């Protein structure tokens, strides 16, 4: 059943900037959906429209089938975790968590139980009487999460909640958020520009660009089968090459002629392959490419190699070993089933 739905939602700000255009998105109960895209793509605007902070210029928002487009945030069954945590600095950890239930006239006994349970779950029971400025960033984020969950909302909205944390803590809190979401079963809408966060946490990823949805799908789907050049380029690394169709299963590119598993659609603009799709060992046959290494960067588990051919500049591939130097020749094969075709323009 649909928990939250946007129907033909667009948002034009007073200065004429169109932040969103005709957004149609349905999110099911208990689903973890990530809005992923670069800065300015409209993901936070859409989240704030879901929360009720912004009114859409056109279109409407439905929650559990009811139109909530004009309902203010305090009247919606949503709770938000903010990028800056937005904790109340004058209230203790426990008072912060209790704020929502108190505001919503939850009986005292139940409030205390909720606060105690949530603080225990986010491992902050010992910090209940501290002010937020005495906590680390990760702890503050957990308070913000507990504060949102204390409302028992059916939908929790996350606005880049991990962007202020360091890499290690980010991964830890990421797992905690996902764990709590599965435990409580709430619907989560998560905004991020970090593709690894989106891929690791989500049931579905909504990739956005320029106020529009580029693609919606499971993490594997958007990574393995990007539909547009933007999605291919934004999620992970992708090599994009203009191509000419020779026949249904053969295309010609600046890297050479390739046999493909699926014929390109009529609106396909680029051949796309991921750096890790390259297979090494074959020196001749179909789909084999040989070139000189123009640049290399050791990445630990693999080496990032760059090759350049006329018409195909700066193609990247992941070399499994470390022994390679600029100027060396590399030969690799692109399996037909690892070649995709995408539509759209390059950013």
């Amino acid at each position, binding site marked *: 059943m649909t928990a939250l739905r946007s129907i033909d939602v667009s948002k034009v700000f007073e200065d004429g900037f169109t932040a969103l255009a005709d957004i149609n998105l349905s999110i099911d109960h208990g689903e973890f959906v990530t809005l992923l895209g670069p800065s300015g793509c409209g993901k936070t605007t859409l989240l704030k429209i879901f929360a009720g902070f912004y009114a859409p210029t056109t279109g409407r928002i439905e929650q559990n089938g009811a139109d909530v487009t004009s309902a203010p945030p305090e009247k919606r069954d949503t*709770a938000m975790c*903010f990028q800056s945590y937005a904790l*109340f600095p004058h209230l203790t950890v426990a008072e912060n968590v209790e704020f929502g239930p108190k505001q919503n006239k939850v009986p005292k006994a139940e409030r205390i139980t909720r606060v105690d349970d949530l603080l225990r779950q986010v491992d902050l029971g010992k910090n209940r009487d501290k002010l937020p400025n005495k906590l680390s960033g990760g702890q503050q984020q957990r308070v913000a999460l507990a504060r949102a969950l204390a409302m028992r909302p059916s939908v929790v909205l996350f606005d880049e909640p991990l962007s202020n944390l360091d890499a290690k803590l980010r991964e830890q809190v990421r797992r905690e958020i996902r764990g709590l979401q599965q435990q409580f079963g709430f619907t989560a809408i998560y905004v991020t520009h970090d593709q690894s966060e989106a891929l690791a946490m989500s049931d579905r990823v909504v990739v956005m660009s320029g106020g529009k949805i580029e693609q919606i799908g499971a993490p594997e789907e958007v990574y393995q089968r990007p539909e547009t050049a933007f999605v291919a380029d934004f999620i992970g690394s992708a090599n994009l090459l203009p191509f000419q169709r020779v026949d249904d299963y053969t295309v010609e590119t600046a890297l050479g002629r390739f046999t493909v598993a699926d014929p390109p659609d009529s609106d396909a603009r680029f051949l796309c392959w991921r750096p890790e799709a390259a297979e090494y060992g074959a020196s001749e046959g179909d789909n084999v490419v040989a070139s000189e290494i123009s640049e290399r960067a050791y990445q630990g588990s693999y080496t990032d190699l760059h090759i350049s051919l006329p018409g195909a500049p700066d193609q990247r591939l992941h070399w499994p070993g470390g022994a390679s130097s600029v100027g060396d020749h590399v030969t690799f094969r692109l399996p037909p089933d690892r070649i995709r075709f995408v539509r759209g323009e390059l950013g």
Partner: protein
Amino acid sequence: MTWRRALLIIALLTPGLGVILVMIGSVFYVAVMQSFGYYNLVGEDTFSLEHWQKVLESKQFSRALRYSAYIAVVAAIGSVILAYPIAIWLRRPFRGSLVISALLKAPLFVPGLVASFLFLNVIAFHGIVNQFLMWTGLTDAPIRLQNDRGAWGVVFLQLWKNMPFALLLLTGAVQSISDEVLDAARDLGAGSFDRFRKVIAPLTVQAMQAALIIIFIGAAGDFAFQVTAGPTNVQSMAQYMVFLKDSFGRWNQAAVVGVSLMVLALFGSLILAILARFILKSGNKW
């Protein structure tokens, strides 16, 4: 800390602290001493409680004390109450907000006596208020609005003059609250008034206290508004002090009133500031 370092710190503080101590300290010292019979302009310098006794027994003094306290409390609280919604409104810039903000702060640049004079012209028999009342038919003839017994004129002038000052302090404090904190409160179910009571007011309490203290002190010691627009049946402390000095040359009694005014300013403003914090704290526990 070595004595050399302590000496250096004292030497560095002397230009600022020294002036304060000498200028304010000496005035305070002389006023207190004069109230006890010293520094007499005429007669003997002897310790005496007589001046305190005479002043404290005077009905005029107790009325002046109550009146000044009333004006100061109303001016301080009223200015803060009026300034808050405007500060919140001006929190985020919008087209024309700078002009509005500048216009609202204009009274800060008008001397109190000039403001009183302008006010008297507006409410005079021939002033625009009476003209308007007669034009609308609410009155048949001009009515007396000057020096009203309820001191509404003085209260109006105090608010007109002090609200911009409170606004100046509160705008900065309100602007320092992030949008996300207010959005969070809203998201958690707090309506406009609850957002003010539970988030904005507690987070700006220091600015609020500063405004209350400074306005209270200024209004408690008001002379200019009172002598021009104030009621004639009661004197303010400052007015009474000058009256004692000018009319009878009672410098010692005037000093008693002066010291009492300082005590009123100190304790009144402190009580107001503590009360503000206490109310907000208990409001948060709700």
